């Protein structure tokens, strides 16, 4: 079924009775050409592009809960391509290009909105670091503008320019940065994959990975054994547990990151604003809630909930930067499980087991990568060769020292 404004009107006139299910509820088959473990954003986009780009439709996505129930459904929805290290720049740039066509690609309104992202800086040194970033973006054909204090004031007049603890020197504007409706991305890819014949199997937890003679042959699940010669592990914060089923240890620690939303407010913040000195970022959703967050709680956790010290730190940062939000009331706070790699960059790679692939380590930045991650992971699973855009996302880069470290936190854990 094709969605359109006309369809919404005709269905509305007839009681909205003719809509078709967004996806089927198939029973798992005994065997597939490929299995994806994890029905989050990255798993669903991988399934979609396996079907769309590589013609692999006899595949299944196995999800232990509900589709899109992981970080894709609990993030702060920022979409940007402002990375400066070669290897990252190209990848995120491609991802943003995919975002820019995602509504028509999926026939699903993911509400990708290029509202403009502004990264504030507060010293000459930070300005120069952002200049390095902005220049790298432009060198790759993306957009960046270095704003001075007055430039920022013109766009964000409500910031506190007089007495904030870290005075605003300026900002790096990434006009094509913005936000999207997070659930819609998962649902759009799910519906697209389902339409192409992919089996999306919910409430199906993988309990074992079957390996014979160094090759993967299938998985054990709560709904029985399923055979497949190719298996992709795309389990985000739970990657460690999934990989352990294949006898692997990963360079990952899982951490909790909290986020917040306020009650609905009439439009007051147009852009996405990032305040690095305060570990604070904010935007306003189309429903009117201020969506914002900060840094990790900083302890390994699978609880998907956090504690007050970081909650308060985030609120304090908001109050020093933009005290006009003081009377907005936080409606809900939540946490996600972040698969943190030591250098903060992801992994899309083969493993030492033939036919077993892994896509993980998205840290706290996986949402914007959903399209390109699926694009590259599907390429890897279909062709058994690494996509050019993902060639730096190697699993062994920590052992060899070929790090990809945007934040300068290195190859040790917990320095983020």
């Amino acid at each position, binding site marked *: 079924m094709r969605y359109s404004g006309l369809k919404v009107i005709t269905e509305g006139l007839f009681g909205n009775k003719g809509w078709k299910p967004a996806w089927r509820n198939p029973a798992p088959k005994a065997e597939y050409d490929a299995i994806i473990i994890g029905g989050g954003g990255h798993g669903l986009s991988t399934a979609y592009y396996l079907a769309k780009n590589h013609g692999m439709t006899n595949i299944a996505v196995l999800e232990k809960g509900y589709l899109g129930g992981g970080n894709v459904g609990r993030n702060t929805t920022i979409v940007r391509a402002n990375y400066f290290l070669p290897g990252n720049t190209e990848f995120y740039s491609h991802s943003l290009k995919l975002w820019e066509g995602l509504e028509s690609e999926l026939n699903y309104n993911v509400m990708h909105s290029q509202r403009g992202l502004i990264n504030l800086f507060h010293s000459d040194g930070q300005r120069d670091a952002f200049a390095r970033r902005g220049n790298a973006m432009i060198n790759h054909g993306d957009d960046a503008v270095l704003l001075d204090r007055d430039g920022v004031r013109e766009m964000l007049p409500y910031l506190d320019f007089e007495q904030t603890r870290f005075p605003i020197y300026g900002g790096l504007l990434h006009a094509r940065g913005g936000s999207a409706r997070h659930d819609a991305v998962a649902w759009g890819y799910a519906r697209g994959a389902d339409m192409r014949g992919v089996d999306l199997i919910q409430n199906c937890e993988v309990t074992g990975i079957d390996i014979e003679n160094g090759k993967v042959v299938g998985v054990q699940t709560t709904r029985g054994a399923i055979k497949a010669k190719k298996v992709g592990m795309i389990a985000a914060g739970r990657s460690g*547990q999934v990989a352990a089923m294949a006898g692997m240890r990963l360079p990952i620690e899982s951490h909790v990151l909290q986020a917040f939303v306020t009650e609905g407010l009439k439009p007051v913040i147009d852009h996405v604003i990032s305040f690095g000195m305060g570990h604070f970022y904010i935007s306003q959703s189309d429903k009117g809630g201020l969506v914002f967050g900060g840094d990790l709680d900083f302890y390994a956790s699978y609880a998907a909930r956090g504690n007050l010290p970081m909650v308060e730190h985030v609120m304090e940062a908001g109050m020093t930067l933009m005290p006009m939000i003081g009377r907005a009331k936080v409606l809900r706070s939540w946490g996600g499980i972040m698969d943190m790699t030591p250098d903060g960059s992801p992994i899309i790679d083969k493993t030492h087991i033939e036919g077993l692939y892994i896509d993980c380590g998205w840290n706290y930045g996986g949402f914007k990568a959903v399209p390109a991650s699926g694009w590259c992971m599907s390429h890897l699973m279909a062709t058994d060769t690494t996509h050019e855009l993902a060639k730096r996302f190697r699993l062994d880069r920590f052992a060899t020292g070929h790090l990809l470290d945007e934040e300068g936190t290195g190859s040790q854990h917990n320095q983020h």
Partner: protein
Amino acid sequence: MRLTCPLCGSRDRREFYYYGADTYLNRPAPDAPMAAWDDYLHLRDNPAGVTRDLWYHEQGCAQWLKVTRNTVTHEISAVELVAGPAAGGKGASE
């Protein structure tokens, strides 16, 4: 969230700095193969359940602590000093 420092008692989480799995205590010999260093620096069990991790009472007694903690419930079952009576000089070679 609170931790009970063996020296200072029950304190707010704000006083502590977190450093991850206690794997960091098992420093390989300087001439150990690179795989051992890779293990030490990067690879983690990352358990969903009981783990032992390192915390530093930065705004207190400046002691590094080994905390037995559940990553699913956040329950803390033990806190010991890294440099407690049992600690030695392992790791630093001549």
